[in-house]
């Protein structure tokens, strides 16, 4: 398997886009071939990532050492390289991405939002897959930037073309606009604004690295320089701030989150799933991969600030959820809260906190992904997402209702299901943040975060009560509702199983992440690791 060592990651990243190009050659009318190609390339990428788990050397995974590395000259003139590699932190996220892509294609099989056109939709999905997989494995800042941006185009079109056509009155616009039009451009502009500054930050690092040898965009080299204290002072402060803008918009952290409810609500089902499950992780992953190790000093001084924003996000997201009448919008706002926990975990700069954030990302990907799937299917059946009209779903569609209840329980952090670990551990982490961080502030954050978990339970149960319980509204009398069909089953059951498995045995994620995270925290922040992790590790 020598070839796999050097070609594995490249294939995982580019097989989807090759699939998209092949689909482009097939005439629109031959839908069967189009779907088969789409599923085929998603499955190939997924299987390759499974093979990669098998080949991954878990014992030898440590911070700033990567496996399956490729390093080839790409833009020689500026010393930017085609540098890919994977470690214990990116592995679970990469697998999550390829896994959900397969399920999304399966779900799409007979669920197409208007105006259908499976050919174009699948091409966009696969292009998106390339961007997302690439972001998780890129080890060169320019390459990272490219992958980080590539995801915008397909998502823009997904929201804009297949999105929600409801007319909405939006402040500042004279006439009512279709939600999809407003949401798609807002999503793009916000992200672009952030990433323009992120790019300036990257370039500043590149420039500064020239003082210590050849200028470089290479994350491995920059991490070494950062660890050696190369980037300090006002320079580092500004660079961290510029990158923070780019990543925080993507996560999104309060107050940069306003694009999220619009985009998620307006997107077609699969678009919302991929957006919530994977694209949000690009931002938080970037914090762990780039901001923390390259600018450790600044990470320390920004940590309290990040913690405060995260906690505000948790509370704000939860309160906003309680005020929603639209089911999909409620789930969208819940992401703000959940990503708040992820960012709170990162801000503690401890191995517990960072581990929490990674398992939180994986869990949020699975759970919120599934919630959006179910919400999409419910909308598909009832043609409304207004919770006041939905009640009694449990009686009309028991299986769908059951899955929704299960997922909502997972989302509110029920122990024994995947969502628990991320929330619980990030609170544990903030009880005892990295030495030197303001203890009082983090403990207050912990308490407020804990209140947030109660609120989370509150709005999730509120949603269940509105949608699932009670008697069906009289307007549905005489309607026949088809319960979960086989494509939905095929797409959802694997997620349900994984949510339970990770909930009971989180070690399958920690096995991959712990060693890397521990060595990251030890080397970069000089912490003395004594605490042990729940679930071993």
């Amino acid at each position, binding site marked *: 398997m020598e070839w796999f060592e050097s070609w594995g990651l490249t294939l995982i990243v580019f097989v989807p886009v090759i699939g998209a190009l092949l689909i482009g050659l097939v005439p629109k009318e031959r839908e069967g071939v189009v779907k088969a190609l789409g599923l085929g390339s998603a499955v190939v990428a997924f299987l390759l990532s499974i093979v990669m788990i098998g080949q991954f050397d878990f014992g030898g995974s440590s911070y700033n050492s990567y496996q399956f590395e490729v390093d080839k000259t*790409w*833009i*020689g*003139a*500026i010393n930017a390289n085609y540098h890919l590699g994977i470690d214990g932190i990116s592995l679970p996220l990469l697998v999550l991405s390829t896994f959900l892509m397969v399920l999304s294609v399966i779900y799409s099989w007979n669920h197409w939002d208007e105006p259908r056109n499976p050919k*174009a939709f699948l091409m966009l999905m696969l292009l998106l897959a390339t961007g997302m997989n690439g972001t998780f494995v890129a080890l060169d800042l*320019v390459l990272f*930037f*490219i992958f980080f*941006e*590539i995801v*915008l*185009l397909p998502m*823009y*079109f997904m929201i*804009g*073309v297949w999105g929600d056509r409801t007319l909405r009155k939006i402040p500042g616009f004279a006439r009512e606009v279709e939600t*999809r*039009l407003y949401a*798609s*451009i807002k999503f*793009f*502009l916000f992200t*672009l*604004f952030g990433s*323009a*500054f992120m*790019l*300036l930050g990257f*370039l*500043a690092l*590149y*420039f500064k690295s020239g003082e210590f040898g050849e200028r470089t965009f290479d994350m491995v080299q920059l991490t070494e320089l950062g660890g050696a204290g190369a980037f300090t002072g006002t320079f580092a402060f500004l660079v961290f701030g510029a990158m923070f803008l780019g990543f925080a918009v993507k996560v999104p952290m309060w107050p940069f989150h306003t694009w999220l409810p619009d985009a998620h609500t307006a997107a077609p089902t699969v678009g919302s799933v991929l957006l919530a499950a994977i694209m949000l992780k690009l931002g938080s992953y970037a914090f762990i991969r780039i901001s923390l190790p390259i600018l450790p000093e600044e990470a320390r001084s920004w940590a309290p600030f990040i913690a405060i924003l995260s906690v505000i996000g948790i509370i704000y997201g939860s309160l906003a959820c309680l005020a929603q009448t639209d089911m999909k919008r409620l789930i969208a706002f819940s992401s703000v809260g959940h990503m708040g926990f992820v960012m709170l975990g990162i801000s503690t700069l401890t191995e517990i906190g960072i581990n929490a954030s990674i398992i939180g990302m994986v869990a949020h990907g699975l759970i919120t992904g599934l919630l959006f799937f179910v919400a999409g299917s419910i909308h598909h059946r009832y043609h409304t997402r207004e919770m006041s009209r939905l009640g009694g779903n449990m009686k009309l569609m028991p299986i769908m209702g059951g899955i929704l209840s299960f997922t909502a329980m997972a989302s509110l952090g029920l122990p024994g299901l995947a969502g628990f670990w991320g929330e619980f551990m990030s609170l544990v982490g903030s009880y005892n943040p990295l030495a030197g961080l303001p203890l009082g502030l983090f403990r207050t954050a912990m308490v407020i975060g804990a209140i947030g978990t109660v609120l989370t339970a509150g709005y999730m149960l509120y949603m269940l009560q509105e949608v699932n319980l009670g008697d069906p509204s009289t307007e549905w009398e005489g309607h026949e509702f088809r319960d979960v069909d086989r494509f939905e089953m095929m797409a959802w059951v694997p997620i349900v199983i994984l949510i339970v498995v990770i909930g009971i045995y989180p070690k399958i994620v920690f096995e991959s992440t712990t060693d890397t995270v521990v060595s990251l925290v030890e080397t970069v922040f000089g912490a003395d690791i004594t605490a042990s992790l729940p679930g071993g590790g």
Partner: protein
Amino acid sequence: MPFDIDYLALAPELVIVVTMLVVFALDLILTRPNKYWTATAAVAGTALAAVPLIFLAVDGEVRSMFDGSYVVDQFALVLKGLFIVSAYLVLLLSHQYIESERFYQGEYYFLILASVLGTLLMASSRDLIILFVGLELTTGPLFLLAGWRKGDLKSNEASLKFFIMGVLSTGILLWGMSMLYGLTGEVTFGGLSAATVGQEAEPAMILAVLFIILGFGFKIAAAPFHFWVPDTYEGAPTPVTAYLSVNSKAAGFVAMLLVMYLGLPELSEIWAPALWVIAALSMILGNLSALRQTNIVRLLAYSSIAQAGFMLVPFAAAAVAGSNLEQGFSATIIYLVIFSIMNLGAFAVVIAVGNKLGSGEINAWAGLGKIDARLGVLVAIFFFSLAGIPPLAGWFAKFEMFRSVIIAGGSATIILAVIAAINAVVAFYYYARVVKAVWLDDPAADRIPDEETESSGALRLALVITAGLTIAIGIYPSIATFVGEASRVLAAGG
């Protein structure tokens, strides 16, 4: 002093001259239905002119003539390559357009080729006189071509505005140049560079430099010298507009940078702040005005003003920071090359959509993606590339711009970088508006499909070439970086 003429070095120019004469002769001989042969001859001649370029590039020798006033080095070759390729593309765009509306064909190609000859001369010029002659040869024929749609009042207006502004700017430019000559007694760049050491406080010198910048400002259509641009672009025949916004703009850019970089580097204290202001103003005014446009050509006109601002940023930043000009110069040239390709693509797609829908109003483009998916994809490619979205070529141009600004360092440049970053986002909005109309809006219900004209093979070829290059450079930018490398030759040799 005997003049040794190196015919190989002059071969591209000579081929163009011969082609001009052939076109002229053919136009006299051919009957009206056969006039399209003049187009074929022009296209073939332009392609042929690229052949000696390849020989010269492989040879790699720096050929200098006329006491160093006319130089063929790597830099000149790269620019000549750019001018010839984009002229070739413009000719491909012109063919169907010019034939369909019963314009004078022979004269059209003759004049376009004359302008191309001017750009080629300009790329090699290393003194003020040849530079001026080249530049005027580039612009002169365009005054006529802008008014080529004789029956159309807008086209008349375009021509007249362009002519008056153009002549005025030429006068000012020449005035500045003559003052420079009067003060130093030099016309070659090398001589000027030596004679202007320590002259930055001399009032007449300041005036001369400012006049020169003002003159060039008109040529490159940068703010605040841009008022002729929207009307002229809209009124002129679309292929001529493409030529104006790419070749003629690029020629103006190269001329200005050559004068500043090779001739007046010692006076950068005078011209650097001026360029900084022009860059910032062009970006801001161009983008803000573009936001309000409803006509696609006017939108591209304002966008090209804004792009001129982006293009100036690296060079202006390097000059203001007083750091190495070489870096900024090469970034500007890379931007210029990438912009030329994608902007020509955008104009090609405007012409193709015009054939399809018969309109240049953005609203009328609604639902194009559903009517003709391939054209819709091309619109997305070129407009997103202009906006600088990866993985399309435009990202690398913007990236190089930011990179050279950051390398230059200093607070004034950081401010310029921030202005550019905000403007990049603003620009995205109006480019995306076009894509939105094409893909997100539904086609008008009352559209009559019979009015379609089939786009010609030449136009399709132009679309394929520009789209191919836009994607290829975006994915593997090393294709474009050699341009920057070539411009470093100047620093070594000049």
